[in-house]
């Protein structure tokens, strides 16, 4: 006992008693990888016209920003210094025309870069979603819904900036930088080299300091998401907190996480506030060097004019923007490496259950089902089913009985081909279901789960989920048949009542009635039903009993049964224990055997009124 206790309470003792624990997201950035980058950018080549248009518009803008300082310099030299009003007007009008051209280029640039970026994002998200949609159950069973959602939404969104601004602007900025360097070198190569001393410093600042800033903001964001997780949970669980008078402890905990956030926020803000002044000062050093050497070169008569010195000053000022933006793109890339890795990981996952290329469509079934030596394991260690054999005739109702974990759910998963057997064959009307087209199979196999999933929308939409082309009248008819009509009509807008937040307004029993209506509307040849265990409002329970009878009529049905009435009325009972069928037969037959089933029934029975 002592040993056992030690093991069960092993681990970090502070964690055991931690008032709340919030796990953080996955890695936020990753080192640069060329192959991944290539794969990422291949998405842009899907929209070549938008790509070229963006580039053309951007280059137009660059040209203006490169020429304008030169024109101003020339104007000072050739017009103002020489008191030539005619030339002054000429240059001024030319500059104005240039700016108007830039205006047009700007509009086109904004339009095309956004088109391009948003198109890439839309495409990538669509591809990821439809791929995930096609993945099999083992994929979804292994990870929480939240983490899949984060990839489709947040990871894709984090690439948005890169595709709308990042790529085009980094090309622009490279051109601008090269352009400025060439112009400065051609104006005066000595002065150009001297002023360019600050470029490496700026480059370093814009990448490294920015990286530090980004990191510290990430820390802030992680802290904030913890705070938000806690706030959300505090609101949802507030009744428990008040009932157990936990306010004081929780306040201490919250103030702790709030103070931690405050601390991290201050640090990030501090780094942020340093950035501007440091950049500013670096720029001043550049100007100081320029004037110190420039003025002396003017005096020495090296061919440098006042106008060109001013032009130089303007160009030096223009260094900063492209370098700063390049630093930003570099940081965007590191983030993109992490999110694209996660995205590609999903895209590269192959569905474990899929229709083969030559898979035939399953013909309309009569409903005969056969399991031959079926075995299944979810992973190599855990065997879920061993050597399962049974034969079901069309129209029969089969009750699956046994304790939790005995293998009933696995049989359901195999019947609907959510998973495929490790060995053995499952046939329907003689066709091996694993060789058939998946869609044609599921169109004929209907499933009613224990906890019915309700989509946001109207009740009408939710029932129609079973058969999209059903008319309103057919939907209502289906609801009437399974006795769901009564409670639906009592809702404020009847069939048009909106259900949100996963149907939280409906009780468990009502949700099950809706799923009955859904199933009867779909009218499957083979029905799989997982009866709800929960105790349900007596009146609703009564409706469910009635609805169930209607639902089972005229089709082959497999029921994971909890109600004795359902079990008793079935044609065959399969009793599962440890992944095997241990007993089979009708209720009358099995009740005489004093076996596993009889034990089970009597145990249940003892607690019923």
């Amino acid at each position, binding site marked *: 006992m002592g040993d056992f206790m030690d093991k*069960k309470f092993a681990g970090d003792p502070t964690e055991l008693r931690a008032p709340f624990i919030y796990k953080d997201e996955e890695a936020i950035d990753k080192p640069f990888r060329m192959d991944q980058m290539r794969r990422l950018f291949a998405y842009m080549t899907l929209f070549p016209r938008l790509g070229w248009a963006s580039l053309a518009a951007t280059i137009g803008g660059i040209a203006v920003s490169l020429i304008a300082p030169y024109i101003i310099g020339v104007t000072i030299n050739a017009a103002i210094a020489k008191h030539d009003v005619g030339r002054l007007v000429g240059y001024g009008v030319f500059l104005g025309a240039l700016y108007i051209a*830039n205006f047009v280029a700007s509009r086109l640039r904004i339009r095309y870069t956004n088109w391009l970026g948003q198109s890439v994002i839309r495409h990538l998200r*669509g591809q990821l979603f439809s791929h995930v949609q096609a993945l099999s159950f083992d994929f979804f069973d292994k990870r929480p819904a939240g983490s899949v959602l984060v990839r489709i939404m947040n990871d894709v969104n984090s690439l948005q900036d890169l595709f709308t601004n990042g790529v085009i602007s980094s090309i622009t900025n490279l051109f601008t930088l090269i352009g400025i360097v060439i112009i400065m070198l051609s104006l005066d190569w000595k002065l150009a080299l001297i002023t360019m001393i600050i470029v490496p410093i700026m480059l370093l600042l814009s990448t490294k300091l920015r990286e530090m800033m980004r990191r510290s903001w990430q820390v802030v964001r992680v802290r904030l998401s913890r705070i938000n997780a806690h706030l959300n*949970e505090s609101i949802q669980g507030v009744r428990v907190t008040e009932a157990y008078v936990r306010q004081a402890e929780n306040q201490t905990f919250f103030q702790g996480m709030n103070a931690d956030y405050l601390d991290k926020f201050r640090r990030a803000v501090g780094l942020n*506030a340093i950035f501007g002044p440091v950049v500013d000062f670096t720029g001043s050093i550049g*100007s100081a060097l320029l004037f110190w050497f420039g003025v002396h070169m003017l*005096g020495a008569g090296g061919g440098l004019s006042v106008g060109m010195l001013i032009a130089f000053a303007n160009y030096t000022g223009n260094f900063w923007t492209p370098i700063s933006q390049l630093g930003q793109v570099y940081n965007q890339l590191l983030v993109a490496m992490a999110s694209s890795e996660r995205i590609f990981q999903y895209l590269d996952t192959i569905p474990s259950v899929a229709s083969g290329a030559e898979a035939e469509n399953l013909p309309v079934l009569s409903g005969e089902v056969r399991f031959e030596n079926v075995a299944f394991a979810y992973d190599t260690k855990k065997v879920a089913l061993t050597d399962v054999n049974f034969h079901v005739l069309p129209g029969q109702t089969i009750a699956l009985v046994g304790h939790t974990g005995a293998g009933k759910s696995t049989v359901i998963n195999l019947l609907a081909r959510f998973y495929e057997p490790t060995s053995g064959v499952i046939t329907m009307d003689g066709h091996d279901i694993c060789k058939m087209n998946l869609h044609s199979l599921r169109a004929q196999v209907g499933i009613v789960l224990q906890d019915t999933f309700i989509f946001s929308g109207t009740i009408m939409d939710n029932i129609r989920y079973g058969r999209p082309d059903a008319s309103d009248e057919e939907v209502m008819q289906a609801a009437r048949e399974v006795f769901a009509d009564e409670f639906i009509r009592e809702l404020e807008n009847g069939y048009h009542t909106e259900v949100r937040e996963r149907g939280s307004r409906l009780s468990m029993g009502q949700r099950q009635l809706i799923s009955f209506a859904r199933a009867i509307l779909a009218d499957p040849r083979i029905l799989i039903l997982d009866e709800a265990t929960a105790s349900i409002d007596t009146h609703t329970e009564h409706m469910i009993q009635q609805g169930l009878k209607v639902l089972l009529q005229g089709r082959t049905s497999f029921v994971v049964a909890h109600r004795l009435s359902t079990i008793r009325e079935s044609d065959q009972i399969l009793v599962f224990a440890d992944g095997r069928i241990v007993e089979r037969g009708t209720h009358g037959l099995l009740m005489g055997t004093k076996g596993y089933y009889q034990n089970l029934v009597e145990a249940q029975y003892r607690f019923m*009124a």
Partner: protein
Amino acid sequence: MDIFKRLNRFYKPYQYLLGISLVALVFTVGLGLVYPYLLSLIVNKVILAHEFNKLGLYIAIILIASLVKGGFNFTQQYLGQVFGINAAYDLRNTLYKKLNTQSFTYYDGVHTGDLMSRLTADLDAFRQFLAFGFNGLVQFVLLLGFGLGLMFTMNWQLTVAVLVLMPVLAFVAVSFDGKLWPAYKEVRRSLGRLNTAVQENIMGVRTVKSFAREDHELDKFDHRNDSYYTANIITAGLWKKYFPYMELIGNMEVVIVLLFGGYLVVTGHMSLGDLVAFFSVLWYIVAPMSQLGYQLNNWTQSVAAGERLLEILDAPDEITTPVQGYVGEMQGLVEFVHVSLAYADETVLHDIAFSARPGQTIALLGLTGAGKTSLVGLMPRFYDIASGAVKIDGVDVRAWDLAALRKQIAVVFQESFLFSTTIFANIAYGHPSATIEDVRRAAAMADAAEFIEELPDGYSTLVGERGLGLSGGQKQRIALARAILADPRILILDDATSAVDMETEYGIQQALQQVMKGRTTFIIAHRISSLRRADQILVLDHGRIVQRGRHDELLREEGLYRTIYDMQFQDQGLMPPAGEGNLFDSFAESASASASAN
């Protein structure tokens, strides 16, 4: 301004930070004009007047001014931000405290999503205005004042020419921002819808696949993905419409300065150095001009946000502890004296009267909406009654010290809620200092110990939103263990074992009988089997007690209890007398035997 005044207790303690920040801001803006001014001196005196010996001095001043300005700028930004963060810190703590003491009635009327958006987006909008919104507006005024002042001293005609386009720029900037906010709101809205579609799809993947509705889901997704795309393109369209204009107006200012300024230099009304400096000052004030819309919007947004925060803070405290409330050790004697309860205008409970002695089990039965949950919620004062009195140990619950009252009553709610932490901490929620043994014992009584110990991490297993997914029955048993560990004098089980099977429920009830000896238990259940052993069964219908008594008494009466019993019995009635006679009869005997033994 009124909104800010009403929230001033949060930022007043830190106002000195804003004060220092503003002083630093004045210096920052002032020193920013040193460069344009010295530029004009370098051109006029050094280059044109050949006073080369002054160059070193001027350059040194530029560098020093830049350094000092950097220091002020850092101080200005940093302290402004800290001012905002500190106020947000206090505000967040206060909001949290407030939310943890709000009445159940309050929570019946609000949505989690709405509260969350106030606690996140609104709180941040408020912080932003304190942190840099206010500074931004001051900076705008200072820049305009100082910049124009310097320009006027250099040349008033040119300044007037430059001023012509400024209002146009301000107008474009303000109207742009006015349109940008709604557009971004639409982007967020469509993102929210897309998010819902994906989330539902993943959570309902079993339903989707079993109905082979992947194509429908793809259509739905594509549609929302398109709307999100369109919202983004519309927003980009606004940028396309306005941003080039702002850029153009700024550029046209350059053309004006070049043409008119150049003319003034040519005609000898202005020096070349001043013209160069003019360019420099121009850039200094054009940038903030195009930000004006953003600054003003930041202000209006923060006022609206402040209002929404005040709604939370000013919500009345409906249920508070009395001054010098009763704090005695509870015995568990409960009396309801002609109790009526109303939510808004609707009366939920009518004239409820009964009493329960310590050691008794009281069961409540009735259809959904009959008022069972409301009734039991009156004992820990989750709601206050309209008339009558609820007394515990002869003391009106409104005279009890609220914490003392609630600590001695444990409730297991209909929906079992687990927090994101270990199973251990969840069970110990009401009694954080509990020992490992205590927790284990409580878990065993709730029939939870077995499955918990089979988990790889045992009691250290993380549960809650991102933790391990437990079944409904497992969650209920952990919630029950939590209540048992709280060692209550009154235990309330609100349909608390609905998701566990009957066999387990029976075991739990046996264990509870031991723990609750001499204490009072209230059970709400739908299954007759869960409540047939109660000392008193209250049958509720539309907020009234329509029947009361023990199981066998109620069975003999015509009424709701019998009707419900018959409905549940019908299910078993299908059982044949299998093998050894009628199983039901033998059960009924043993049950009544155990009931009379109590």
